[in-house]
């Protein structure tokens, strides 16, 4: 059972894309629900992304990847 880390539709307005500026946790690391795992930037605004569940982090989109709303950037297994 895995839980996707999804860029929420309401994280920012409009259709502007964002960039993953950093993963704060390494691929394969244990995370708890609510832990900060990544940061993304759109329109010079930096957002924090939290782990949606406890488990092992699997990174799908690497740092500097350009993403849209709804993108699955990783999962917690």
């Amino acid at each position, binding site marked *: 059972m895995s839980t996707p880390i999804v860029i929420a539709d309401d994280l920012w*307005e409009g259709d502007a894309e964002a960039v993953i500026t950093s993963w704060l946790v390494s691929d394969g690391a244990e995370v708890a629900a609510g832990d900060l795992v990544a940061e993304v930037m759109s329109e010079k*605004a*930096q957002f924090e992304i939290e782990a949606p569940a406890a488990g092992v982090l699997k990174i799908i989109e690497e740092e500097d990847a350009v993403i849209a709303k709804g993108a699955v950037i990783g999962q917690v297994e």
Partner: protein
Amino acid sequence: MNGIARFSVGAGLNAERALLQRVCDGLFDCQLLLWRPTGQALVMPGSFERRPGFALASQRCAAQGWPILLRDTGGEPVPQSSAVLNIALACALPAGDEVGKRIDIAYERLLEPLALWLAENGLKAGVGAVPGAFCDGRFNLTLEGRKLAGTAQRWRRSRDGRPVVLAHAALLIEDWREPMADVVNRFYHACASDLRCQAGSHLALAERLADAWATATSLPECYQRVLAWQGLELGARASTYPPEGLAAGRHSPLL
């Protein structure tokens, strides 16, 4: 006390982090910090550390008197010096405030008091991108089509789950346009980047307003006044914003 703190650039960045933390911790719903650097540095998002050539660029900039410091907001490299007035506004938003948590509304909340203050001093500001400006973006504060202030944001959640935004503006007061554009271009060159900026894309407030620093001492009062129109009380502990009938995201008549 004129409401403008003096910090080294590093201490100023830390003061902004502490400001955001206080609001995230629920100590305040809205706080403002105005500060002016005592030294100088080239400030950029932490993700720049991964760029090829960063170490070399960092050494070269430091050797020219512009050490590199990392910030928590987005964007591109920005020179900070005693020529700059930094304005940081941290606000916690109600959980259901869909308008207030928009990026553009958070920029408007930051820039509307600045625009009013400029208008009261006979200057008509705009908002928009400025080709050739360093750290360009759609939410620059402009004068005569040139960049007067750059902006950025950082979003977090408060302990009780509300969205919290730190919106920041770097307002160029004194005319350091040439050395600032020069150090940014040297950084890009050392990183083998093709990006370049031009001093002429910027404008310093002192080029249009005499006694700009002295006049800036009235900015905190202007923020207090404009934010009060939106139901925000600077330094207030309560979390009743926005009061019934006041929309945090109402459209600004100035911008």
